[in-house]
């Protein structure tokens, strides 16, 4: 029960599940991601319902989207998912330094992704694709922007965790936090894969 029992001494094999608090956190987070799935599912549905409502004289997705930029962003984000897996594997081997390194790399890749996205939005706005231009633009920015906000949140969160582990070390209190942040990061990755297909690829061919 007590969060203290493993603080000193050897870390157990799966430190994130060593305490009841840890197990609660992991399960609670899985459920939270279930709710997030409904959230993004609804955003996707709204986008699909409105994506053809471009309005007269406004740029359509086909004209706007630059698959090259988006593809690079996709590769970056998928790579960051991989680095976060390495971080968790390092955690399970109790290699704190390696874990921290992989986490820092994950954050950097996240920042690169975000930078590309901001640049992309900036371009779109200049081409007349503003938030209030049409139902298409509103639902586009809301869906992709919600995802971007999730990435930003994840970056801040993981950075704080890196600082925390640096101060307190890896133990049965910090391990579940890192593990859960990893789950979160995978989730936003999966959402992005759907955005890439549904918004960009389908938008380009349609």
């Amino acid at each position: 029960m007590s969060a203290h029992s493993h603080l000193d001494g050897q870390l157990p094999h799966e430190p994130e599940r060593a305490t009841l608090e840890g197990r609660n956190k992991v399960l609670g987070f899985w459920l939270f991601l279930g709710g997030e799935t409904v959230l993004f599912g609804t955003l996707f549905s709204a986008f699909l319902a409105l994506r053809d409502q471009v309005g007269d004289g406004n740029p359509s997705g086909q004209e706007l989207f630059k698959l090259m930029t988006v593809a690079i962003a996709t590769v970056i984000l998928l790579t960051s998912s991989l680095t976060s897996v390495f971080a968790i594997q390092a955690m399970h081997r109790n290699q704190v330094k390696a874990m921290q390194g992989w986490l820092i790399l994950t954050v950097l890749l996240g920042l690169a992704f975000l930078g590309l996205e901001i640049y992309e939005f900036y371009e779109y706005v200049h081409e007349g694709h503003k938030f209030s231009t049409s139902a298409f633009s509103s639902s586009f920015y809301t869906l992709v922007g919600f995802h971007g906000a999730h990435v930003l949140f994840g970056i801040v969160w993981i950075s704080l965790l890196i600082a925390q582990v640096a101060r307190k070390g890896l133990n049965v209190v910090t391990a579940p936090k890192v593990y859960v942040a990893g789950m979160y990061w995978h989730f936003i990755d999966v959402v992005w894969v759907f955005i890439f297909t549904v918004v960009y690829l389908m938008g380009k061919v349609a």
Partner: protein
Amino acid sequence: MAHAHPVKRYTGLMDWLTTVDHKKIGILYLIAGGFFFLIGGLEALLIRVQLWKPLNNFVSADTYNELITMHGTTMIFLAAMPIIFAMMNAIVPLQIGARDVAFPFVNALGFWTFFFGGLLLNISWIAGAVPDAGWTSYLPLASPTYSTDKGVDYYVLGLQIAGIGTLVGGINFLVTIINMRAPGMSFMRMPMFTWSAFITSALILFAFPALTVGLVALMFDRLFSANFFEVSGGGNTVLWEHIFWIFGHPEVYILILPAFGIISEVIATFSRKRLFGYSSMVFATVLIGFLGFMVWAHHMFTVGLGPVANALFSIATMLIAVPTGIKIFNWIFTMWGGSIKFTAANLFAVGFVPTFVMGGVTGVMLAAAPADFQYHDSYFVVAHFHYVIVGGLVLGLFAGLHYWWPKMFGRMLGEGLGKLTFWTFFIGFHLTFFVQHFLGLLGMPRRVYTYLDGLGFNNMNLISTIGAFLMGVGTIIFIINIIVTSAKPKTAGNDPWEDGRTLEWAIPSPAPEYNFVQTPLVRGYDALWKEKMDGNEGMSPAEPIGPIHMPSPSILPFVMSLGLFIAGFGFMYANNDWQAGFFKDLFASHAVAGAGLLITLSCMVIRSLKDDHGFHIEPEELTNKGVKA
């Protein structure tokens, strides 16, 4: 090693603001939900006064729209849901033999966000811009074109903030029930109320995010000129209806399932029999929860989705009547041959059964799509949902409150006054709503502030208004009962009804802070009853007596929610037509909104960085004292 850092323990108001104890949070939910229930009830009485005679001008048409909108929104989101959460907080951990919930901090956060969201919504009355587009807030009525004042903004932001609280509360209960059951408490030994809390929480988890998105979209339309529902910009108003009802229909089952759970406990206890068909009850609850997601378009039969869609949703809706019917029969068979005690709690439970059946029957009538073209938007629908919500949920909550009051507060509610509450409320209820079926069939539309003379509506509306006041009297008697009871000494024993079957009756009333001195060992369904039948004194423990770890109290949930509250105002008044000056600069720059969000985010950072070591209660301190109420 077991010694943690000493923790500051607060008293008085600070104790309530910082508590993370699920029993106290339950009481907070009850007080706040009860308060909003009174506000919503007052609004209902004003509506009924306006309608007591034809062409009445007690309130204006505008005010009337505000009253019906705020009545519906308040009752569903700020009264019914919180009182359900009150019962779940007070009872579920006890029923599964847990010392605490899975996330005590998050639980407190859930309460405070609900509270501040509700406050924000109701401040609209003071601000003079009240939501008036109905509790369903359909578009285009709720669009910036047709709702030009800030009324609908209050609706959007108030519900958004309150909704966060509900969502995290639901996750807390799911994890609590999955991970924290006492040894031997398998899923198929869980009391029915806990089962219903479990399924309701799952519905919350999968339904509320849809509402979140709907509200965000409406907020973006209203505050940042988005075009989700703006037809001129290519938006689609039917999209809102889909999103709202994909949330909205599961929501009505979120409301009714806990009542089903309460009724199952109360009827079994006072029939002094095991609940009939327990496994089929569990199965029916799960099935209702599942089907609840497939029927939302029965609220949209008249939109024009086409005959195929209407037919499918019609059949799916009627299907729900099957598991519901299973439950009704199980309750009747539980009573059958039992030695029934008609306590006040049981009166409410027994009164629930036929009343809810009537609501279910009108539901199936409404589910026949072609017929619904006649019923839709008439008083028939109003009668239907009040039969299921008031005659169902509210009677269930009254039953639960009378039944568990001793467990929450250590005192039994007066039986005499309780029975009087039942009869006045019950008769008042049927007077109010029975006639509304016929008003609807005669063609009286809902949500219209008055009606003409000579349509045959007069007498029935008068009866309805009289009934509403009788329900008001019933509520006042209940409040008197509470006040009288709170003056009595705390004498309730562990098992004040003497027929308790489930674990909560194995521990003192009210439950001590740590619930169980020793985690109990569960040996069967109706855990306590089984021990009684085997001739044992209470539960056998599953662990030796030892120090008990408790979470520390924290003010952060309160401050976090306050931050959201401030941010809500900031967003709402950012594009207000302020006169140039300090306030304009403050709001238009989004400084207020930003500051609010910053408060909330900083609290999250503090929470993440500062470990909560909690504290330990040592064996010598385990005095079996209950929580103070």
